[in-house]
């Protein structure tokens, strides 16, 4: 029974995707039901599977379709608390996103393929979660990658979307190749692709190269989950539609890497080197991405960098051996980050710009999108880790795990002795986690204040768009399909943390490790978060005061002064492009959208928003806004040599090989020209030559005899 339900969960969205692609343009009315209903059914089934399986049990089933050589590949299902809980998360988020998309992309000409791809992605994610076989898992993993590629490039008319999709694909592929070899090495050591078999082998000490395997697998995890060296694709992937960012690049796909490490954690625990690498990677990712998030002007990029940082938290928890904390944070993060992205979509939809600076120009944005305003506040509080929101509890569980590991008492849930986790990892994760907690609170506060709370006095009157005034009247301009998923997701964002407190609820599904925050880290974490909020608030007040001063002073001189202090980095300089994207959003005519975008451009060009980021970051502002130049470094170290090599190959092909070809063609051509002279059309000449040849042959034969 449970097994049938579990098989149906990935199957339904898959069939929905196929049917959606087949129905496609012919029956447009069917697209939305075909996208939404299978996903919702899958979500319901996932809940049923989770309830049916209950706590503390796991289910393994496998069938072998065909013999596949040395190491058999099975169609295996492995259900335990981790997979069923995450499947519930995926189902709920995917359902919300599909409902939200019906409205957000209603007038998009490619909505049918979009919906089918999202369904296909959902099916692949379910497959990854439920699969008990590494090769089958890899299939789902790669299908997710290709879906992500297509969905990031949904607006392929735009240059940035095209390049972002290619970048996402290539960078994740870069990690996937070592990942594939890691799976092979793992299977070669364990003798099976079945995850249960691999874990049994790890427990029995049959794995002879745990460090190598773990490091190879980590490459794939870093690519998929956007960890430090390979994280650069995720901020760019925000060129995709906002619901896609919410589903794929925040809540689910990027979590697949974390999930995989959690599943194979016993393998990683065999190698302390791999754990140190994972911990350092997580720490660098956390701090760096938090700094970057603080400097971004594009609201979606802020959220993308925060996703990278939160994934760093999960990786840190895994590095300390506590997969319960990682999965707990994964669940809460999936809920509140999806909420944040969907709310950001609503805000972008209403403001017709991605730029925070431009949003700060709009005095009534708060009133125009009240649902997004409130839900975003909830999401940001959860993100910042303010109690009692869900993010606080999950983050504290991570910090607790790090603290315990630092004291040599790692919470491994019985998978390995506590000494398997080096204490240094615990310290690294703990320090980085606290620092990131501070920064996270700062950028969450900054995002909220700049976007919604900029006082009217700080907004230069000249920049106020005249055309925007009449558009302020409708309070709830957004369609219901875009508002209700926000509130639906707000519930777990608020309350999900509480389930971690009770030892018989969430932990009983997992390894049974207590998720209750320990006293010291709870106090420390809360203080850090509150400090971040306060610092950010103070900086914002100061920036606002500066702007107000400038407004009262001579405008020209003040503008000059203010350019130095408050001009945002990475301003969205092309609001018209964004308009082209957003003009397809319902509820607004194109001309109106264009007028709004013009005002946004004007606002961005005058550029005096009370942005606390510059005051907070100081000299780090420039590098942080550019992602610490990592893209430029990659361009210099990797892209340019590859391009140069390609140019060399092109040169060799054009100039050297083609010369040989031309020579090879030219010599016969010359010969042909010579022979062609004999082709004079006189049959008697031909015949003479023929007879002469025959005579010569006859003479030769006669002489030879």
């Amino acid at each position, binding site marked *: 029974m449970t097994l049938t339900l579990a098989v149906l969960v990935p199957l339904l969205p898959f069939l929905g995707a196929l049917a959606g692609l087949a129905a496609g343009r012919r029956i447009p009315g069917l697209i939305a039901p075909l996208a939404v209903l299978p996903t919702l059914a899958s979500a319901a089934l996932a809940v049923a599977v989770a309830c049916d399986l209950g706590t503390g049990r796991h289910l393994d089933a496998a069938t072998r379709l065909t013999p596949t050589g040395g190491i058999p590949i099975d169609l295996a299902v492995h259900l335990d608390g981790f997979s069923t809980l995450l499947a519930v998360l995926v189902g709920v988020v995917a359902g919300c996103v599909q409902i939200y998309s019906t409205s957000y992309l209603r007038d998009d000409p490619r909505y049918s393929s979009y919906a089918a791809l999202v369904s296909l992605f959902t099916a692949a994610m379910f497959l990854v979660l439920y699969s008990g076989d590494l090769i089958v898992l890899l299939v789902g993993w790669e299908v997710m990658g290709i879906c992500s590629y297509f969905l990031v490039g949904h607006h392929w008319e735009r240059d940035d979307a095209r390049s972002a999709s290619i970048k996402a694909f290539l960078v994740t592929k870069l990690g996937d190749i070592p990942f594939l070899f890691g799976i092979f090495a793992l299977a070669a050591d364990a003798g099976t692709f079945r995850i249960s078999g691999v874990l049994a082998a790890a427990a029995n000490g049959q794995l002879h190269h745990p460090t190598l395997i773990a490091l190879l697998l980590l490459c794939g995890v870093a690519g998929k989950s956007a960890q430090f060296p390979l994280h650069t694709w995720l901020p760019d992937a925000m060129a995709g539609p906002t619901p896609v960012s919410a589903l794929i690049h925040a809540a689910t796909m990027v979590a697949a890497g974390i999930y995989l490490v959690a599943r194979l954690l016993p393998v990683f625990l065999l190698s302390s080197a791999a754990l140190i690498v994972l911990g350092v990677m997580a720490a660098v990712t956390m701090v760096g991405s938090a700094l970057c998030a603080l400097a971004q002007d594009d609201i979606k990029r802020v959220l993308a960098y925060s996703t990278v940082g939160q994934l760093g938290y999960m990786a840190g928890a895994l590095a300390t051996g506590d997969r319960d904390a990682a999965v707990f944070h994964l669940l809460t993060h999936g809920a509140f980050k999806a909420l944040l992205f969907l709310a950001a979509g609503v805000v972008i939809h209403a403001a017709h710009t991605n730029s925070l600076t431009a949003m700060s120009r709009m005095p009534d944005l708060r009133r125009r999108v009240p649902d997004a305003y409130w839900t975003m506040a909830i999401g940001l509080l959860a993100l910042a880790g303010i109690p009692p929101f869900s993010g606080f509890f999950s983050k504290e569980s991570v910090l607790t795990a790090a603290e315990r590991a630092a004291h040599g008492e790692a919470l491994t849930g019985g998978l390995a002795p506590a000494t398997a986790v080096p204490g240094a990892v615990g310290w690294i994760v703990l320090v980085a986690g606290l620092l990131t907690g501070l920064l996270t609170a700062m950028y969450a506060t900054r995002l909220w204040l700049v976007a919604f709370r900029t006082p009217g006095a700080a907004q230069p009157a000249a920049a106020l768009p005249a055309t925007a005034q009449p558009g302020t009247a409708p309070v709830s301009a957004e369609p219901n399909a875009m508002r209700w998923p926000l509130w639906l997701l707000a519930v777990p964002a608020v309350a999900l943390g509480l389930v971690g407190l009770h030892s018989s609820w969430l932990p009983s599904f997992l390894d049974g490790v207590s998720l209750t925050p320990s006293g010291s880290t709870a106090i420390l974490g809360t203080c850090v978060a509150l400090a971040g909020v306060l610092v950010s608030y103070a900086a914002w007040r100061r920036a606002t005061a500066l702007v107000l001063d400038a407004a009262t002073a001579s405008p020209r001189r003040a503008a000059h002064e203010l350019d130095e202090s408050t001009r945002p980095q990475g301003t969205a300089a092309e609001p018209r492009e964004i308009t082209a994207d957003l003009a397809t959003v319902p509820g607004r005519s194109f001309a109106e959208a264009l007028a709004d975008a013009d005002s946004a451009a004007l606002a961005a060009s005058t550029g005096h928003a009370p942005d606390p980021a510059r005051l907070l970051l100081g000299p780090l502002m420039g590098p942080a806004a550019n992602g610490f130049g990592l893209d430029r470094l990659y361009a210099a170290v990797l892209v340019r040599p590859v391009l140069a090599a390609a140019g060399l190959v092109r040169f060799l092909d054009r100039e050297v090989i083609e010369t040989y070809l031309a020579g090879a063609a030219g010599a016969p051509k010359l010969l042909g*020209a010579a022979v*062609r*002279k004999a*082709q*004079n*059309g*006189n*049959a*008697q000449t031909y*015949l*003479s030559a023929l*007879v002469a040849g025959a005579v010569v042959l006859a003479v030769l034969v006669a002489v030879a005899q």
Partner: protein
Amino acid sequence: MHLAYPAVLAALLFCVGLYGVLARRNAVLMLMSVELMLNAVNLNLVAFDVWLRDTLHAGQALTLFTITIAAAEIGLGLAIVLMVFRTQGTADIDRLRELSEPPADGLPPGPTGAEAGPDDSDTASPASPASPASLTGSAQGKAGAV
């Protein structure tokens, strides 16, 4: 009788025919030379048949076949020559050069090239300036008179 006599006669006759085929300009004369060559072969067949006393008379039977085929050949050949004469206005072998490589390099032999070919090769010939259509008409008039 020595076999050498008919054999040498056949060889010489064959070579005379060969010369005619290669040297004659008129297509009908060429066909006549071909007949000479065929007869040389026939002579060989008969002579060797007599020498070998073949019980199946293969040589003589083949001679009969050759004669028959030669008759068919000359009938068809003349018909072809006649048709060439009608369309091209001449039965001169060395003026029928449409299959030659066109002088312009790389140009495919189009219809203009096909007409210009004979004109270029022998501008002194009186028949070449006339257009094919008028020649056809006059040839038909002649054929009708015959």
